[in-house]
């Protein structure tokens, strides 16, 4: 069986205003000494969970990717990251070409630390860039200096990282078209091979949601956000980054193998508090709080909060929902007559590509990508 590992690191030195991820700051955890001491203890727990995973699903497993996400995994000590990689290598069959990604906060690393991550086996870095415009970063409540991106990606390149990605956010209130173009231009000038660009989502309960509700920050403008997507796709393509998933663009073969395993409905195990797993149609997810997570593992129990066994129709719905977002789209011969009929109206309106449709595939055009949810709702089971 093929498996991807996701390792969640639920710690940040500060929570950003738009973020609703399962992550905790020292003050939320009532740690006065900061996060420096937390790496070793947390990684020990993660390793325990990997051990339990092995007991559950066996060792005859090929691991093609590991992804350290967060939170801020770059807060961890490189040696601790290395321990996780080694544990997976010793318990399972980790392929030679395995993609091992680390999400990096540009503020939290120097060149030396990056070199150590490379040494322990990390071979892909994903930097949280978000924007190159100071006032936009301020609205997002991000602390980093946009100049840092040039510096950190430069170091990474010099050190020999071949796969470098940046994350961008567009549609932030107050971000003009010029602002966004500046962020795009700034990203494509970096020595990188991959870009993820997400439209900002205002999640309920976040500081940003409260600020918008109070009127301190203006509402999102969906029409402007749509324009920004179109502009981004154009600039990225011109610079050689081609879309392969709705919010992801890559040069040549630099697609994220790990993320593709999500979108292709493959198996993955999520390690860490709140992490989700999917093994052959079973979904389960871990308890959310690091303390509960710790208690469970100290008792040598899988820290699972709840699970869901997908029915065939749900598996099919997920397949449609995920594959429509990929360049390959959906093979029309896998659809029933009603679904084909429902989709054909979107071919007429130019939201699905006509020549692909005639060749048996439902693939999104640029305008189609912007209303992908609307289209997939039509054919959901």
């Amino acid at each position, binding site marked *: 069986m093929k498996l991807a590992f996701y390792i969640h690191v639920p710690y940040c030195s500060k929570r950003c205003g738009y973020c609703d991820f399962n992550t905790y700051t020292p003050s939320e955890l009532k740690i006065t000494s900061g996060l420096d001491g937390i790496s070793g203890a947390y990684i020990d727990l993660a390793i325990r969970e990997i051990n339990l995973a092995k007991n559950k699903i066996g060792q005859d497993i090929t691991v093609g990717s590991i992804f350290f996400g967060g939170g801020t995994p770059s807060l961890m000590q490189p040696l601790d990251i290395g321990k996780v990689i080694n544990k997976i290598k010793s318990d399972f069959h980790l392929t030679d070409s395995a993609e091992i990604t680390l999400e990096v906060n540009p503020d939290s690393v120097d060149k030396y630390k990056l070199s150590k991550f490379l040494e322990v086996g990390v071979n892909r870095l994903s930097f949280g860039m978000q924007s190159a415009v100071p006032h936009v970063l301020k609205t997002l409540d991000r602390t980093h200096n946009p100049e840092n991106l040039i510096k950190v990606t430069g170091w990474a390149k010099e050190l020999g990282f071949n796969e470098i990605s940046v994350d961008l956010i567009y549609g932030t209130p107050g971000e003009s078209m010029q602002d966004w173009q500046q962020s795009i231009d700034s990203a494509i000038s970096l020595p990188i091979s991959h870009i993820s660009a997400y439209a900002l989502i205002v999640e309920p309960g976040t500081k940003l949601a409260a600020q918008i509700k109070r009127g301190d920050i203006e509402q999102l403008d969906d029409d402007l956000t749509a324009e920004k997507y179109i502009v981004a796709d154009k600039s990225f393509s011109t610079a050689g980054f081609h879309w392969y998933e*709705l919010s992801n663009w890559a040069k040549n073969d630099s697609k994220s193998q790990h993320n593709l395993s999500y979108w292709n409905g493959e198996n993955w195990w*999520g390690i860490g508090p709140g*992490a989700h*797993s999917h093994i052959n149609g079973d*979904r389960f997810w871990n308890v959310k709080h690091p303390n509960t997570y710790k208690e469970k593992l100290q008792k040598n129990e899988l820290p699972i909060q709840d699970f869901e066994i997908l029915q065939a129709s749900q598996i099919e719905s997920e397949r449609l929902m*995920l594959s429509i977002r990929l360049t390959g789209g959906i093979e029309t011969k896998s659809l029933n007559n009603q679904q084909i009929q429902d989709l054909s109206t979107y071919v007429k*309106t130019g939201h699905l590509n006509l020549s692909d449709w005639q060749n048996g595939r439902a693939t999104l055009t640029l305008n189609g990508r*912007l209303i992908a*949810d609307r289209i997939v709702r039509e054919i959901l089971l």
Partner: protein
Amino acid sequence: MPAIPITKSPQPAATKPDQIRNFCIIAHIDHGKSTLADRMLGITGVVEDRNMRAQYLDRMDIERERGITIKSQAVRLPWRSGLDNQDYILNMIDTPGHVDFTYEVSRSLAACEGAILLVDCAQGIEAQTLANLYLAMENNLTIIPVLNKIDLPAAQPEKFAEELANLIGCKPEDCLRVSGKTGEGVEVLLDQIVKQIPPPVGDLSAATRALIFDSVYDSYRGVVTYVRVVDGHLSPRDQIQMYSTGVRHEMLEVGVISPEPMASNGLGVGEVGYLITGVKDVRQSRVGDTVTTYNNPAKIALAGYKDPKPMVFSGLFPLDGAEYPMLREALDKLQLNDAALVFEPESSAALGFGFRCGFLGLLHMEIVRERLEREAGLTLISTAPSVVYKVTLDDGKKIVVTNPSEYPDGKIAEVMEPIVKATILAPSEFIGTIMELCQQRRGAQKGMDYLSEDRIEIRYTLPLAEIVFDFFDQLKSRTRGYASLDYEPIAEEAGDLVKVDILLQGEKVDAFSQIVHRDKAYAYGVSMTGKLRDLIPRQQFEVPIQAAIGAKIIARENIRAIRKDVLAKCYGGDITRKRKLLEKQKEGKKRMKMVGRVEVPQEAFIAALTTDSDKASEKKK
């Protein structure tokens, strides 16, 4: 203590007419009729304190919640008069207070010799009460003026006693003063009922004649018929006969309500009670008909009532088309109790299959709708109310139109619309605003009188269609709630009317068509297209909304195509969440109606068809 135990009181079928007093209470909504009735039940001892609940007689949830009475009720109250120390039976016939239910009021009046005119002495008499008062006076009923709520700090009993005295021609000091809430003055009132209201007069030995004043379907017992015996008597062994149809029925039970049904040995002259015959359809036990006995049928019927005629029509459609058979069943059932409700199947391109229903007025319409939703668990869309138009075509052909979508296109020689006589009572400071509103609604002033120094009665004739279109809400809001309205149809007049159609993407939406006066067509078109622009979500294509008279476009709005409908992120933990969100959204889509290619949410229909967005909440206050 003048309450007497029920068992020791004069018994049904053994009560002499001169021991009986039959009365009803005429009052406006909120003037405290149900509270007073509750108090009477308590003081006469028919309901023990521990069984008392507020508004005991209002049977339906809707009645209790809205504080209004929809169906009449008759309760037998034993009472020992404090004036002569004799035992009496008081039959209280509860009547609805709203203008829509005038026909129910007139039934109740025919069963009584007297009426209590109950007026809130913080508010004064209201237009609808006035109308019912005139009705009672026409029926030669003895009127006892009563000022209620004297316990309120804002009570002005002197002022309103003056007003009542002017209206009914008595002295201000003849107005009794009570508080249904505290019970003050209620015993005096009961004594005055005995003293002032004449006992019923009838021939004990003549052939039995009893007037049906209400007929209610009960799912356990079949039809329960409420009667007032005029001559002769009814006994449990009788075979009865309906005068109008000549049909014979077995009597299964006869009894009185006190306040729960109680079988009795029969009913004598002047008594009020119920009978059950096993009939399953109220139409076989028609209100206004005369009950007589099979063995000795009466030769002459009692004067009945005119059948109420529906004045306002609206389409009712189930939100979920599959609920159509349930809607039919629920309407059938409601009609068992509500002879004024008429309906026939209707199909709408936009709303599917439903029923065109006729109502007595707006409140009647609202109550029927609410009962259908509540009692049958249906979710309904009702189209904008319409009145009855009589259209004459150029070729002399005549058509009756109760549904705007049936309005003929072109070649119309004349359209007649119903005209009502409206009476508005309000503080005199609002004369200007009220006249302005009536002028805007094509009204013609017919007169104005001062009821007291600062209260006026204004009379207008107005097209009913104008009243149906949010007139009452406007009147209330422009007079800060002080004005009250009553109206009755008086004539039909020719009007310069046109039909305005609403088109979505060039396609006519029949549910939104409306017949309006030519001068108001433009305003209607602009307001409707504007409302729909705000209510219909953006689609993946542009949707023009137009208002048109025939082929002429009079207003236009545009819904721009949606640009973005996608969530950017979709990683591990997002997948379940996203699938569930999409499934939920898809479920929501099923509640959309397709108009051509345009998805219109049910809420848009409901909101667009509601003349005033805060109307529903306003009414419930």
